[in-house]
């Protein structure tokens, strides 16, 4: 009997002929990503020996630039580690900095069929590149960095067959909200994305789906490989060996579900959870917002910034509403400046924050006060996620966020895009 993509990569990297649901497998880890949180004194332990420094990537992304002395100390610890081991792929503040998962896309770091490990919970983002990737604990990162392996439990796989093409003003974020709203948590399960509609989605759009799959509590989220994805990697990582992994024709899925992209509409997730909580925007339309946030590893690519720019062009952010925009990497930021998207956004009154996780996690760059309301394109809307526990966070697509920023209330983006 055949295997799904996740099962095949587990088998290949675990040195086994076959892996199926219920198996616990020890696998070789190809790529380990460390970020600033790994270097916090309460979590960091001094590494004495690395398994293979060439497999390590380091970025400063969660709280950048350092907003306080504790973060500054963590960054200093990070730089000392990089220097000690001569880590080449170090993305410090500057030309090549960015949110880790965005850097993976920018630089073609995740290869098809490989295992990528990082302790940020949105590491499943890299699954867009047909790669086995998921969030692990900080100690797991230490283990993989020093011993070169990790363990995974294999769960069942749910397959999503993407069909058709998204309508204007509707995005992959809305597709995700549809899946999360309809099917809820996929705890212990892998999700696999494929189908004829996949070709209509850009890599950035597909990446939104894999990144957000963490909010389904999915284990691995992997996309089928296609020429578009392989070309993306080749362009950015020309020397990489590409060995895509396709599911077997007789792979066994717990369920195969169709997603009719053409039937989708703009959605929002209401506060406090992303699962089983999605509704058409009109259900929340008119809700006053204090802050609109366009950022995070899920949704601040060039495509997202250009879409938001189309919505706000020639208009101004509503009085009393803050529109904070956080390009996901310095590369994305530069591209968005060149394309005019940043110009349109700042002309409208958006505040552009540096590439950082920032407000997404409630750390800095836009923390919410008591009872404030925010609509976000980021990954989570848990109670207290972006600030005070009494604050409320709605989630929507970049277009919905931008439209809401202009009106000062939650707004259907189709008012501005047709």
């Amino acid at each position, binding site marked *: 009997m055949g295997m799904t993509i996740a099962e095949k990569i587990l088998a290949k990297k675990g040195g086994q002929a076959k892996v199926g649901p219920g198996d*616990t497998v020890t696998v070789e880890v190809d790529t380990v990503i460390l970020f600033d*949180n790994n270097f*916090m004194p*309460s*979590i960091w*332990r*001094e*590494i*004495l*020996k690395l398994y293979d420094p060439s497999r390590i990537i380091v970025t400063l992304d969660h709280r950048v630039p350092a907003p*306080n002395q*504790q*973060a500054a100390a*963590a960054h200093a610890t990070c730089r000392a580690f990089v220097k000690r081991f001569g880590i080449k792929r170090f993305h410090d503040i500057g030309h090549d900095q960015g949110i880790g998962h965005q850097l993976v896309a920018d630089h073609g770091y995740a290869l098809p069929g490989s295992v990528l490990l990082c*302790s*940020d*919970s949105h590491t499943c983002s890299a699954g867009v590149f047909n790669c086995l990737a*998921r*969030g*692990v*604990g*900080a*100690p*797991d990162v*230490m*283990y993989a960095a*020093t*011993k070169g392996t990790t*363990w995974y*439990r294999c*769960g069942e796989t749910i397959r999503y067959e993407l069909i058709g093409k998204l309508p204007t003003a509707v995005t992959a974020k809305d597709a995700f909200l549809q899946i999360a709203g309809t099917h809820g*948590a996929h*705890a*212990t399960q892998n999700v696999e994305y494929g189908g004829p509609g996949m070709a209509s989605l850009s890599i950035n759009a597909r990446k939104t789906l894999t990144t957000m799959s963490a909010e389904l*509590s999915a*284990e691995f989220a992997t996309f089928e490989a296609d020429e578009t994805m392989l070309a993306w990697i080749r362009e950015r990582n020309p020397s990489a060996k590409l060995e895509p992994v396709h599911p077997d024709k007789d792979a066994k899925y717990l369920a195969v579900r169709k997603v009719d992209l053409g039937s989708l509409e703009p959605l929002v997730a209401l506060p406090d*959870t992303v*699962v089983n909580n999605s509704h058409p925007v009109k259900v929340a339309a008119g809700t006053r917002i204090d802050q609109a946030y366009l950022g995070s590893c899920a949704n601040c690519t060039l495509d997202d910034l250009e879409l938001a720019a189309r919505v706000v062009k020639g208009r101004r952010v509503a009085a009393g509403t803050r529109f904070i925009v956080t390009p996901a990497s310095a590369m994305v930021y530069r591209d968005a400046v060149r394309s005019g998207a940043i110009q349109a956004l700042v002309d409208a009154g958006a505040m552009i924050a540096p590439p950082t996780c920032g407000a997404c*996690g*409630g*750390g800095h760059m836009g923390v919410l006060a008591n009872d404030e309301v925010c609509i976000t394109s980021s990954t*989570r809307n*848990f*109670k*207290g*996620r972006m600030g005070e*526990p009494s604050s409320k966070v709605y989630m929507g697509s970049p277009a919905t966020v931008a439209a809401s920023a202009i009106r000062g209330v939650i707004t259907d983006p189709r008012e501005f895009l047709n």
Partner: protein
Amino acid sequence: MKFKAKVWKVGDNINTDLILPITVFYETPEKQARMVFHANRPGWVDQMQPGDILIGGKNFGMGSSRPAARSLKNVGLSCVVAHSLNGLFYRNCINFAFPGLECPGVDQAFEEGDVAEVDFDAAIVRNVTRGVTVNGRATPPRLLDLLKAGGIYPLLEKEGLIAPKAS
């Protein structure tokens, strides 16, 4: 490993932001432990007693990879038993040597305040107050050994891969 204590109950989908809030993210593990459930059950840390057992529903520990399991250990709980444990959270239970047991239906078998007897190795949970027994999913032997040895840091330290903790 066996535990017997009073249980506290939380619902489904308890996320790690509730267990380890962003406000103490850069603080010491001890300070982090004081903020467990600050947003959803303020004051609970002062009500619970060392050794108490936490009963959870579906997908306990969902969300961020932050070391929430360590906070639950440091606040003094002996273990968490949940209908299901989020996969990432489960890893941190092993990593930080905080016993986490998956036991489908356990949330239906307990009311807060009941006394539980947990045989962690055998994955059997008994409600002493109500005389009900529920069977859970045993921890895979390799992971159980790792948990019993204190988690990942002691192992890496023993192998000379990381330095002893700075005092």
